[in-house]
């Protein structure tokens, strides 16, 4: 990629949706054209073959399809490349669970507020305690000890077994909690129905657990250690960061781990543009650049490289990872309209479910933006593909469903023939 393209990429994805930059603009990333992982794979397919041979083909297939748990299992062994690959899988799963935890927390917050405002929030039973627990787990800064303290503070004896599972999960033993996540934490007889609530902290605990696994795989210094060594293609491929230098710079600038590759610089934009319009225009510009870059790589690719570019949809994958990270950054800075526009354009609509171009994080972030914009029913629709792949999201979808029903309870329904 030309340096000017790199400048543009950097400029585009730091753009704020208002007129004023939110902070000091950082320098756009210098992007050596052939250092980018897309170029490495396409121009040097032998490096990709070596990566596959030194780690696990099945592991990378699983990772490419966002089956991070399976990838973690397959990247076995103590070789540095395998450990880094395992760290990538754990890191990606931690991001996904964090995205789900944020959504779960916001859903609970809104549910409690809406229900309380109606004056019908159950004053007895498990609801008040679970709501309080959910509020604790909604805090993104909560750590393992904090999470365990939150469980202890509930004082509910039957939940001690679940708290123990959380204890294991935050240390990296996530399987027990995963198995328990589909069972209600509380099931109480209501007026002709059984009221159920699921574990409101499950995604937070899983995020901490997978973070612990990433740290273990990348010991002793976790993600930061990557930049102190040759992170290899296994540290870059399918990532939102294109190169080691980009990752290093982002970490040096204290960009949060989950936003690396998504926030680089800021751009002053015309004030009268809506956040959606601006985001869409930026993505159009990005797409123009990527199209040129892709064509250039295709032209220079040796035998095998072009097939990898096409079959693994490498440029498209980078695009979607980058847009997802940018959207995550937008959500972190309370810009849901911008986030939603980026995510709508990132999504591969020809695939209805999770696919190499539609990550679970993309869906979770889309649902979060929709929730923040009041489009709660649409958020539920967005999450539907997660139901099978992530059965632990059952509690989240049930609570989101409760909110949908509450929000529409006053409405007079409308229906039409198509």
């Amino acid at each position, binding site marked *: 990629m030309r340096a*000017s393209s790199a*400048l*543009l990429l950097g*400029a*585009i994805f730091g753009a704020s949706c208002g007129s004023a930059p939110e902070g000091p603009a950082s320098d*756009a990333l210098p992007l050596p054209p052939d250092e980018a992982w897309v170029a490495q794979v396409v121009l040097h397919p032998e490096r990709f073959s070596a990566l596959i041979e030194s780690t696990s083909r099945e592991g990378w297939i699983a990772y490419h399809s966002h089956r991070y748990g399976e990838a973690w299992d397959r990247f076995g062994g103590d070789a540095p490349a395998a450990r880094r690959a395992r760290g990538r899988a754990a890191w990606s799963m931690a991001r996904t669970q964090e995205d789900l935890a944020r959504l779960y927390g916001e859903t609970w917050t809104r549910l409690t507020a809406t229900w309380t405002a*109606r004056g*019908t929030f159950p004053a007895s039973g498990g609801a008040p305690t679970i709501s309080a627990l959910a509020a604790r787990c909604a805090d993104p800064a909560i750590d393992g000890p904090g999470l365990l303290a939150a469980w202890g503070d509930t004082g509910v004896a039957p939940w001690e077994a679940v708290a123990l599972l959380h204890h294991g999960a935050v240390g990296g033993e996530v399987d027990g909690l995963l198995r328990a996540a589909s069972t209600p934490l509380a099931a109480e007889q*209501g*007026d*002709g*129905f*059984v*009221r*159920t609530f699921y574990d409101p902290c499950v995604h937070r605990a899983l995020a901490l657990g997978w973070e612990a696994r990433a740290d273990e795989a990348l010991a002793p210094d976790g993600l930061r250690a990557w930049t102190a060594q040759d992170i290899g293609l296994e540290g870059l491929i399918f990532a939102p960061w294109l190169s080691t230098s980009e990752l290093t710079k982002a970490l040096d600038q204290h960009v949060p781990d989950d936003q690396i590759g998504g926030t680089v*610089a800021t*751009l*002053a934009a*015309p004030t009268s*543009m809506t956040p*959606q*319009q601006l985001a*869409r*225009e930026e993505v*159009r*510009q990005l797409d123009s650049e990527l199209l040129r870059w892709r064509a250039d790589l295709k032209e220079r690719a040796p035998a095998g490289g072009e097939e990898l570019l096409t079959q693994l949809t490498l440029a498209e994958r980078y695009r979607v990872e980058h847009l997802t990270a940018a959207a995550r950054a937008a959500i972190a800075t309370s810009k849901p309209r911008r986030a939603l526009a980026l995510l*709508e*354009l990132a999504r*591969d*609509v*020809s695939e*209805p479910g999770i696919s190499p171009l539609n990550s679970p994080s993309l869906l979770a972030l889309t649902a979060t933006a929709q929730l923040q*914009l*009041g*489009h*709660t*029913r*649409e958020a*539920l*629709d967005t*999450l*539907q593909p997660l139901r099978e792949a992530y059965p632990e999201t059952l509690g989240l979808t*049930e609570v*989101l*469903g*409760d*909110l*949908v*029903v509450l*929000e529409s*309870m*006053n*409405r*007079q*329904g*409308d*229906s*039409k*023939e*198509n």
Partner: protein
Amino acid sequence: MSSAMLHSTLFGLLLSLSASAAPLRYAEDRAPSNLNPLFTTTMSEARLNELVFEGLFTDDTELRSVPLLAETASASEDKRTLTVDLRRGVVWHDEAPFTARDVVFTVEAYLNPTTASSEAGRLDFIDAVKAEGDYTVVFKFKRPEWAPEDKLHFKILPAHLFDGTTAVSRSHPFRTRPVGTGPWEVTHFNDDNSVSLQQFTGYYGKSQLPEVTMREVADKNYQAKLLIYESLETLVQVLPRDLAALQNDRKVELYPYQTNSWWYMGFNEGQERFQDPQLRAAVGELLDVGRLLAPIGTGDLLTGPFVKSSPFYNHDVPAQAHNPAHARSLLEAAGYELVGRQWMKDGAPLTVRLAAVENLETAQDVVLQVQAQLQSEGIAVQTEFLGNAEWKQRIWRDRDFDLILSQWTFDRNEDIYEQFHSKGSRNFVSYANPAVDALLDQARQAQDPQQKKAILREVHAAVAADAPMVFLWTLDNYSAMSTRVQNVIVHPFYFFTWARDWQNAP
């Protein structure tokens, strides 16, 4: 390109948008046949009404109720009365002033049994309405209403055009010459079923599009070509099979249009033979629904009257299997006998008429597939493709059909009362189950979200067991727009609610 250049590009784009504006042309599969909001039964009518008419309240972009023709509203302490002050200075498209009289007339017209409005159920919470002067309306409700503004979104009509009677006929000329207070007025209801609208110069607010044209284009392939070749700016709904091609076109952008919509094949239980659940179940089990869906693209197969993402969908209800052997045993149990290659009863062949809307390419494909599948199993199928007016007459009013293929689309309430309650205004399949009626009544009264979910999941299971319909599928819904159309936010049901802010750069 440097960031400065990008800035300049963006600024240029803005300038071009503000310099002038171009019309918006959009495609519908099925043209509206009646633009009178009292008789809206299809999504294309509802979408067009959104451009022409207004309610007292509407949704803002975060789906909160905000005043539109209302200015302010105040509720009584017991929540049974709402006093609404109306917006001043609003005029109808014929320049007559909008007043409280219009609101009172509208409510009474919707609720007048002689009018037989298909929308009457949306106002059945209103006990009485009266005007106090020109700009104040007082509503009395049957029960306390927590947030009545959420229910006052129905479209307001001009009293002065209905000759003083609230018993409005479907054939009133208003059906093709509507007069609203909205940002666009209908100028022509054309012979080719297209509808032309122009910006209403007397509108109290702002809108950007100088003209809007609705074109009926039944062929989805043709719709996509018209968009790609810039003969249209908007496709309201794109089939899943066309999504990839449109997403790859750099002059087109896709917008989620997340309606809760499902396809079904409904039996007319008004006919004695279809009151036999074994016959209905047999027809369902003879069909390979996955094969029916294939020409349309991908979608979720359904087991009942909700889409899979619905909080009311009962995931414990098993999918109906394609099971011809079991279907044959059901037919035998229902008294049918296979004679040669034809099922017979009392000396007569088992023959059904299957109706669908004419010119709707996707429905036609499915109908022909159903015909082929059932005929290969010994059930003769006659297909009928009905025009819009004939459909409303034969299906909705006369209930003159055996089987229909159609689709229902729901707003976020997903209230299926009108379709499945024995008193429902959209229950033209004549389904009746007292237990389901009771559950639907309870669901409407439920104040606890989990209770409502539990009740409607029970309804799902009961309706699936009764099989008044073969529940088919739901599709991922996207609309497609030219990249020249800017500032687009699509309402998840009515589509055009926020079209006032849309711009189309020339």
